[in-house]
């Protein structure tokens, strides 16, 4: 699914976060929105996930504007993964089944075996509760929980920022597979350029509420834009 934002404006009270913001995320691709803290990255994801309303402008889901869609329809099309894993009460199995149960479906045993194998999680974890798992494992379960509902796009808000490099790599590998194996449109928000370069088809550098640069990882890597250079040198947090 292609996602396009047009003249988007978002604000918290008097604090404008995004203004006159245009961006387009192509279908079946891994897109990373990168930028310093407070640049409006997470707000952008929350708007696309219909967790917040833009003050102005439109978001198009395959050319259908958000105003024509009920938030539930949008949430059916778009899965959202948060920075901190959000496993609910109950076991891993209960969590994986959460969205399916709402849709009056059940997780088939073969399906469980397949998805858990894909994310390197042992089958016996199904009976464990969230707090018995590492943060990386919890985040992978959250991604799978969303994937099981077969959304057209998956949004991830800093999904590996709380993980050590080894665990982060496993999650990044899974995120990349969302496109290669499952044909999903992926939009990830990150402040880590290395993560973005590893998995993205396209990188969007956001600066003070607007897209300053966009392009393939190679283009971004070779860009001589001064703000981007300073950001990559760690001058902006």
């Amino acid at each position, binding site marked *: 699914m292609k996602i396009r934002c047009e003249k988007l404006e978002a604000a*918290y009270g008097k604090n404008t976060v995004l203004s006159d913001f245009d961006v387009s995320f192509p279908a079946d691709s891994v897109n990373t929105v990168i930028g310093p803290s407070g640049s409006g990255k997470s707000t952008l994801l929350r708007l696309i*996930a*219909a*967790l*917040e*309303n833009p003050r102005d402008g439109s978001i198009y889901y395959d050319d259908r504007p958000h105003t024509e869609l009920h*938030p*539930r329809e949008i*949430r*059916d099309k*778009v*899965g*959202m993964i*948060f920075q*901190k894993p*959000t496993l*609910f*009460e109950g076991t891993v199995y209960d969590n994986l089944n*959460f*969205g399916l149960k*709402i*849709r009056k479906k059940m997780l088939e045993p073969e399906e469980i075996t397949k998805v858990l194998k894909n994310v390197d999680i042992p089958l016996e974890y199904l009976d464990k509760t969230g707090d018995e798992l590492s943060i990386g494992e919890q985040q992978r379960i*959250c991604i799978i*929980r*969303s994937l099981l*509902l077969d959304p057209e796009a998956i949004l991830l808000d800093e999904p590996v920022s709380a993980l050590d490099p080894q665990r982060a790599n496993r999650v990044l590998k899974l995120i990349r597979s969302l496109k290669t194996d499952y044909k999903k449109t992926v939009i990830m928000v990150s402040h880590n350029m290395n993560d973005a370069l590893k998995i993205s088809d396209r990188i969007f550098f956001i600066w003070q509420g607007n897209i300053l640069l966009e392009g393939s990882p190679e283009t971004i890597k070779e860009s001589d834009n001064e703000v981007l250079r300073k950001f990559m040198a760690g001058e902006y947090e």
Partner: protein
Amino acid sequence: MSDYIVISNTSVLISLGLMLIVAIIGLINKLGITRSVIIGTIRSFAQLTIMGYILGWIFDMQRWYFTVLMLIIMIAFATYDSYKRIDFRPGKTFFCCLSAMLVGNALPLAFMFYMVLQITPWYDPQYVIPISAMVISNTMTAISICLNTFGSELRLRRYEVEAKLSLGASKSLALEAIRKSAMKAGLIPTINALMVLGIVKLPGMMTGQILGGVAPIESVKYQLLIMYMISSAAAISLFLLVYLVERGVFNHRDQIRYELLK
């Protein structure tokens, strides 16, 4: 009924010396409570004295409308007082508290007065007013604890709620865990009171009856009825309250209202 010691006005004034101790301890330790102790002492003295005269008068008059008026005043004050202590007000909160207070208290009180005690006349102020007051004041505390917990849990577990919405949950399902925590927090003081009743705590009503010369086992029966009413009134009120309040948590696009998270 056997005789009881009548407390003279002078005795009450002398007893005020005990409150002086509280004020002095507050002053010595710089607790900053002296002003509140003084105001509290004056208010409780004045309020209770006035209430004593009003109740005496209502008991003498024996008119249904005075009993009903007292009930309305009690409910209104209790709702206002719990509303004042709530820092989470998602919209029409006063109305939600009032509805919960009315329905939650009316059901167990009516059951007790007309099916168990079978009081006559139906408005007998000697029973209706003091028993209702005890039940209502407990519900008042339960309501403010419940709503404050609802607010703090919502702020703390906002992403859990949003993750559930993202997975297709209805607003009500997304708030289920928060609703449970809030109801539980509101009910815990009442449940705890049941646990220690008779061991570390002889409730005020029972003590009052015993001092008034009622046989202890008779006053125990009354106290048990009161506790059952208090518990069910709190449970019904909170059950209703959380469902009424959760409607104000979201906007028309099923999104958590940003201003509630501040």
